């Protein structure tokens, strides 16, 4: 069963094949968990979203048609759940403080890195850590951070990301480029020679 594609496994799920469902769960549970966590930075919410996305997918197994690939369908459901969670947080004003915190952190980091009295050693990229990058990703607009996560964490193509996010693939590509540029500039401004 390992060599079957996601779509073939999903077709089997529609006929009640439980091992096929287990195989899809083993392929995607941890990816979904990671996908949600990179957006929300909260393990509990991420676990809830991964679970809800999987349940929705298999509840709707009978209505699955090969209009899109399985994983774009799955990530679309997960992204919608993440957006719902963002909305809930905004409503509760919970995310405001954490967003401010991450934005303040980013501003502090920028100020620190751009400070003229810093030694050349301090400006080196070796101080850049993954956690700083993720903090900066958290400060990006939602579409940019989702595009970055789908592209570099989940390995989706631009066309697949476009299908998941409901935007043209050219727009998605520009989001990814803009986000990378923003992340790079936030971490190390450059001075050109010519």
């Amino acid at each position, binding site marked *: 069963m390992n060599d079957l594609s996601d779509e073939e496994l999903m077709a089997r799920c*529609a*006929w*009640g094949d*439980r091992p096929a*469902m287990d195989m899809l*769960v083993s392929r995607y*549970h*941890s*990816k979904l*968990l*990671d996908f949600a*966590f990179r957006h929300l930075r909260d*393990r509990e919410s*991420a*676990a809830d979203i*991964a*679970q809800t996305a*999987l*349940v929705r997918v*298999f*509840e*709707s*197994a*009978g*209505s699955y048609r090969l209009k899109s690939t399985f994983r774009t369908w799955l990530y679309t459901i997960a992204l919608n759940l993440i957006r719902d969670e963002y909305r809930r947080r905004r409503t509760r004003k919970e995310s405001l403080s954490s967003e401010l915190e991450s934005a303040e952190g980013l501003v502090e980091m920028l100020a620190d890195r751009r400070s003229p009295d810093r030694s050349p050693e301090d400006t080196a*990229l070796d101080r*850049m*850590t*993954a956690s700083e*990058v*993720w903090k900066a*990703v958290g400060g990006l607009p939602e579409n940019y951070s989702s595009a*970055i*996560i789908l*592209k*570099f*964490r989940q390995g989706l193509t631009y066309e697949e990301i476009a299908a998941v996010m409901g935007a043209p693939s050219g727009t998605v*590509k520009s989001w*990814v*480029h*803009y986000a*990378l*540029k923003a*992340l*790079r500039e936030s*971490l*190390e401004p*450059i*001075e*050109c*020679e*010519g």
Partner: protein
Amino acid sequence: MECKKCEEMLAGYACGDLTAQEAEAIEAHLSGCAACRAASAAYGVVISSVVDEPVLSPSESESATVSAALAHAYVYPRASRQARTRSLKELLGFGLVTVAVFAFIATVLGLQAFGHIDVIWMIGSINPLRIALSAVVVVFVTSFIPIWVTARRRPLNGLTFGR
């Protein structure tokens, strides 16, 4: 190539989105510009920071919760609920088609009774064989067409999820 132009294209270069010609131009510029080389390296560090972070693995309790939730989804699949709703719609469609057919027959008989049309003349003449054939046609129209319409709309792959 100027640094400004190079800077605009570095993100695309880091993503591998440029054409071979554009990539060559960038590489030629990078070989002679330390600042752009540093910027290009920074893109590499940003991307590897995003890519290399280990993927989260579900804990045992998270896996168990998902398994339990999926078992419930299998027992009560939404698809079977949709199928039930669909069969109600089909029943309604069957009823409407049958009513329409009977209304048509009643109209014809009514027009015949009041002398507006002469069905017997239309059929041809009083001939037992022709009447029998007409009866067959009426039975076919009133029974088989609604059944055929319903059968065409019935899904072939009804879900059979179960324990």
